[in-house]
């Protein structure tokens, strides 16, 4: 069973110089109890994807077509208060910036109380819940932690508190938008392990966004590779890392610093830049930067699927 099914999602932003197509025909699934990773360069539309799921797109953005099926219901058809009922309860989110993600003038305990505002428990039971969650994310001295303010914690602790808040209502889907990017390497590992533990205990699915391939390989069951607003390839982590089908995925793996076999002064990079999303041609989105580009790449590439792994590329048909 899939917790989340994204089907042909198209999102556009109205900007001063025309319409910007931030997501184009994005489709993928998040199965129950699985961790799905999304990789892609900055600006490829990862946050836009999350915001569309949460119903928190900026005012100038709209879902043009496509479905976001969460536990069977289409989120694009819900009104804002129906979406709000899901957020924080069934779908929870951890954001990238642990420094700014928590309110600076409200104590941690009060913020955790607010998140439980829909519950009928008494205040002291809610506080017990909060303390219990802090225990599970290994915050020392929990009772006093509840009375403290976010700036009194280190970056790693703040991120763990944010995770505790997100997990408190035991959501069916946890969305993590680059939760470890702002942390140093050791904290990153600890946070990843923590997420994994909690996911096991609570039994939720996770949509994990990162541009750190090592983290994705470590944590995720499935991987979705995005480029300039499109899903260019998706498959299991094994498939993507051992048998990439799309030239962009190949390049991405080659450019991963952790994957370099020898020490080099020059990391390989993909030449060229992300295309302007306002000037969208029907051809392959990656063509301009692709090392195996041919004439046919100016026409719409087919979606090719092999053993559950799929990619959008002309090369695969040949």
């Amino acid at each position, binding site marked *: 069973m899939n917790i989340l099914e994204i089907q042909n999602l198209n999102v556009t932003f109205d900007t001063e110089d025309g319409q910007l197509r931030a997501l184009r025909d994005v489709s993928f699934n998040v199965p129950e109890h699985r961790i799905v990773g999304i990789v892609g360069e900055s600006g490829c539309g990862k946050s836009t994807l999350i915001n569309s799921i*949460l119903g*928190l797109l900026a005012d100038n953005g709209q879902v043009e077509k496509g479905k976001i099926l969460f536990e069977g219901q289409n989120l694009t058809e819900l009104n804002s208060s129906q*979406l*709000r*009922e*899901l*957020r*924080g*309860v069934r779908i*929870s*989110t951890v*954001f990238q*910036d642990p420094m*700014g*993600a*928590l*309110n*600076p*003038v*409200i*104590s941690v305990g009060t913020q955790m109380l*607010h*998140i439980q*505002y829909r519950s009928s428990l008494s205040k002291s039971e809610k506080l017990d819940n909060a303390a219990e969650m802090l225990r599970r994310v290994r915050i020392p001295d929990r009772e006093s932690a509840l009375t403290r*303010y976010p*700036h*009194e914690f280190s970056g790693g602790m703040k991120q763990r508190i*944010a995770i505790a*808040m*997100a997990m408190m209502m035991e959501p069916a889907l946890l969305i993590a938008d680059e939760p470890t990017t702002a942390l140093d390497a050791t904290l990153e590992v600890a946070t990843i392990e923590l997420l994994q533990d909690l996911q096991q205990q609570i039994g939720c699915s996770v949509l994990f966004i990162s541009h750190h391939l090592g983290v994705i390989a470590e944590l995720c069951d499935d991987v979705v590779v995005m480029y300039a607003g499109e899903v260019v390839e998706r498959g299991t982590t094994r498939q993507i890392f051992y048998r990439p089908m799309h030239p962009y995925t190949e390049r991405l793996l080659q450019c991963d610093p952790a994957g370099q076999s020898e020490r080099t002064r020059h990391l390989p990079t993909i030449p060229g830049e992300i295309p302007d999303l306002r000037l969208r041609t029907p051809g392959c989105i990656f063509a301009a930067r692709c090392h195996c580009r041919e004439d046919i790449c100016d026409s719409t590439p087919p979606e090719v699927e092999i053993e559950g792994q799929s990619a959008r590329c002309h090369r695969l048909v040949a």
Partner: protein
Amino acid sequence: MLNYSVKRLGLAVIIVSVVMLLLFTMIYLIPGDPAAVALGPRATDAMREALRVKMGLDQPIWIQFWNFFINAWQGDLGNEVLSDRPVTDVVLEQLPFTLALIAGGMIWSIALGIPLGCWTAIQPGGIVDRIIGILSVGVIAVPSFVIAIYALLIFAVSLRWLPAIGAGDSGDIIDQIIHLILPSLAVGLGWVGYLARLVRASMLEVLEASHIRTARAFGLPERLITYRYALTIAILPTVTLLGVGIGQMLSSAVFAEIVFARPGVGKLVYDAILTRNYPLVSGAVLVTTVLFIAINLIADLVVGVLDPRVRSRL
């Protein structure tokens, strides 16, 4: 917190001392012999000399300053010229009226300015936002004495809703409050506009912050997000600014007190200038300066109480 308060208090003492020095210099530089002014044209030279000795004017200047300084810190600002009463008594007698006026101005500006700013920030660019924006700039631009005169003409003279002059019966608190409505509006209206603009700008900034996105992602109700998560942060710059605002209200109070013929420190200074009652002028200026500094000190401490980030740094 204690450490910080002590530091701020030390700074306040230094500022007050500097103001005393300036005041002293000012009085010293005013042409004319204070003794001659005090005694009038019909006094003899001997009488003037006697008074000069009594006032300490025959001493070297630094001793004069030192005496002034020590006395001022003890609350003794000399006697005023006309009735020979202690300046401090005369000023303190008038002070409550001015304090009430400024408190009223504050209440107007907070009670209207903050909700308006908050309201316009929720739907920026909308029709409500634009109308309030124009009105705010309008009331900021119009000087408070013009507002005072129009308020008087419209609400007191034409409509007769509210009394035109005076501070009300001294025993009757309701009457006093009714007499306070128009003058305090004149003093506070410009600040309603200021606060509305400031709170709007600072709300818009806070609403963009990532913790607000987090709060929305947790599905918190918009009301809770607006008033608890955003506004409590957005009003922090306002508190500091209000400290400065009170200084401006003190000067607006002079006009309001004159227009509405209210007692108060502003009216006192005005009358004292007309009668060249210099000890009274400098005494009143010193008292208002101390008041202004004290209020700013309080504003800073209030920020410390409201903002846990500042509190822990204190």
